[in-house]
C-alpha cells in the first residue's frame, strides 16, 4: 500500500495509546529504569519515555525472546510424548516507540528464521506484532544507519511511523495494513497531514561508507591481521550480540523437572569462546580475532549472499554496550580504508 500521512496532535497520542490498550493488545514501550531504557510492557503512555536515542536492548525480544519454549515433553516408561507449543498463547502486541533502525532489524531476523523452513513460533509472534515507530530527532556518535541503508526517518519495517514536529505534534505515516488497523481504533485522532517537512525534524547522521564497500573489503581482507588487532581488546562476552536487533544465534536446551520437561531456545553469541567448540575439544574459531571476523562477515557478507539482506542496521547498540569499547563504526571505518 502507499504510505498515508496524517497529523496526530500531541495531546491525542495518549488517547491513541489508551485505545490500543483497550483493544486488548499488549503494549511494549521504552521505559527508563535506572540508567538504561528498554522495552517493557506498560499500561499507559506516562510510564514510557521518549528521551532515548536507542533503547539499550533492541526490540527483537518481542519476536525472539531471550528464553522461549519450543515444545514440552512428558517421559514415561513407554517413551516420550511431545506437547506442541500452544500458539494461541502468543498475544497481539504493539511495539511502541521503535526507532527506524530497530524496525529495519525485523527483516533480517525474519530472513534467518524463515530461511529454509518456516519457523512457526517466530512467524506467529511476528505476525501478531505491530510496530509503531518513532523517527529519530537525536543521534549520537555510535549511530551509523545512513551508512547501512537506513536513515533516521526511514519507514522500512514500521507499520506506523511517528515523526515529532516542531510544535510537538506528530506526523503519522501509515505504512502497512497493521498500521491501518491502529488508525482504525481511533480514526478521529488522525487529522489532515501537516505541511511541515518531515526531514527538518530528523537527526543528521553522516554517511561514512556503504554496505557494499564493507562487504567487498571484508571479503578481500579475510586473511588480514586487522581482525586480530581489532579484537585484542575484546573480552569475549556476549553483550554485542544480545543487544543487537539482528543477531539471531541461539542455543537449544532441554530443561527437565521430574518426568516433565521442555525444549527451549535461548540467545547465544558467536563471541563466546565455547560457541563453536566441538565435543572433541577442537574449536574451528579458536581465537577472538576469528570470532570477531565471523561477526562482521556474517552481517556484511554471508547474510547478503544467502538471505539477500544485510545483518547490520547501524543502531550502534553494540558500541554503546561494549565493556571494552569495541566500537563497530570505528572498526568498519578501518576496514573500509584497507
Amino acid at each position, binding site marked *: 500500500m502507499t504510505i498515508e500521512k496524517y497529523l496526530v496532535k500531541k495531546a491525542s497520542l495518549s488517547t491513541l495509546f489508551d485505545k490500543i490498550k483497550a483493544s486488548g493488545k499488549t503494549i511494549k514501550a521504552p521505559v527508563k529504569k535506572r540508567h538504561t531504557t528498554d522495552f517493557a510492557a506498560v499500561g499507559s503512555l506516562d510510564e514510557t519515555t521518549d528521551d532515548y536515542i536507542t533503547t539499550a536492548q533492541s526490540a527483537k525480544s518481542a519476536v525472539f*525472546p*531471550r528464553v*522461549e519454549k519450543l515444545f514440552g515433553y512428558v517421559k514415561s516408561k513407554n517413551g516420550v510424548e511431545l506437547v506442541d507449543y500452544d500458539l494461541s498463547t502468543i498475544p497481539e502486541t504493539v511495539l511502541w516507540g521503535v526507532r527506524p533502525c530497530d524496525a529495519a532489524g525485523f527483516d533480517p531476523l525474519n530472513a534467518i528464521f524463515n530461511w529454509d523452513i518456516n519457523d512457526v513460533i517466530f512467524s506467529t509472534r511476528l505476525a501478531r506484532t505491530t510496530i509503531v515507530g518513532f523517527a529519530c530527532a537525536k543521534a549520537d556518535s555510535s549511530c551509523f544507519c545512513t551508512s547501512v541503508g537506513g536513515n533516521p526517518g526511514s519507514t522500512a519495517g514500521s507499520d506506523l511511523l511517528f515523526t515529532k514536529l516542531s510544535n510537538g505534534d506528530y506526523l503519522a505515516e501509515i505504512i502497512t495494513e497493521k498500521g491501518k488497523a491502529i488508525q482504525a481504533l481511533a480514526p478521529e485522532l488522525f487529522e489532515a497531514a501537516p505541511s511541515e517537512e518531515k526531514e527538518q525534524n530528523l537527526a543528521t547522521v553522516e554517511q561514512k561508507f556503504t554496505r557494499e564497500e564493507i562487504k567487498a573489503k571484508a571479503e578481500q581482507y579475510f586473511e588480514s591481521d586487522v581482525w586480530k588487532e581489532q579484537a585484542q581488546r575484546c573480552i569475549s562476552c556476549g553483550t554485542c550480540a544480545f543487544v543487537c536487533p539482528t543477531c539471531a544465534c541461539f542455543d537449544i536446551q532441554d*530443561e527437565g*523437572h521430574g518426568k*516433565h520437561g*521442555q525444549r527451549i531456545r535461548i540467545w547465544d553469541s558467536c563471541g563466546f569462546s565455547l560457541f563453536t567448540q566441538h565435543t572433541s575439544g577442537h574449536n574451528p574459531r579458536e581465537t577472538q580475532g576469528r570470532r570477531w571476523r565471523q561477526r562482521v562477515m556474517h552481517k556484511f557478507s554471508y547474510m547478503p549472499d544467502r538471505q539477500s539482506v544485510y545483518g547490520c542496521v547501524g543502531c550502534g547498540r553494540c558500541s554503546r554496550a561494549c565493556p571494552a569499547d569495541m566500537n563497530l563504526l570505528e572498526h568498519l571505518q578501518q576496514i573500509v580504508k584497507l
Partner: protein
Amino acid sequence: MNEFEPKIVAFVCNWCTYAGADLTGTSRIKYATNVKIVRFPCTGRIDFMLLLKAFSEGADGIIISGCHPNDCHYTSGNFHARRRWVMFRSLLDFMGIDVRRIQFSWVSAAEGAKWAEIVNSTVETVRELGPYSDYQKVADFLKTEVENG
C-alpha cells in the same frame, strides 16, 4: 486439604551423622517421615549448589549434618564445610532466601536421639514456615511463560 507436609532433604556425612541416624534406627526412636537422607562421604563434599538444587526440586527445608569439630573422619572436612556455610548462609540471607529452612547440625555416630530431635524440630520449623513456594515459583520454569527483556 490436609495439613502441609514439608519435604525435607538431609545431606549428611557417612561417618558421623549417617551412622548417628543408623543408631536412631537401632534405638527405635521415632521421627517424622518427611526427611530423606542423602549420604555423602563428608560434609566437606557437600556442594552448595546441591542445596539450591534441593530447593528448586521442591524441598521445603534442608538439613546439613556432619561430625562435630575435631571429630571429622577426614580430620578437617567439616571445618572447611563450616566456613563455606558461613559465607553461603550470609549470601542466601542477603538475597532473601530463607535460611531458617536450612538446619545445620553436628550429629555424631553416638547421637541417635539428637538426630531424631533435629529432624523433628526442623520439620516443625518448616511446617510453620509453610511451603517454600516463593522459591519453587521461580524454579518452576515449566509453568512460567517465557520471559523476555
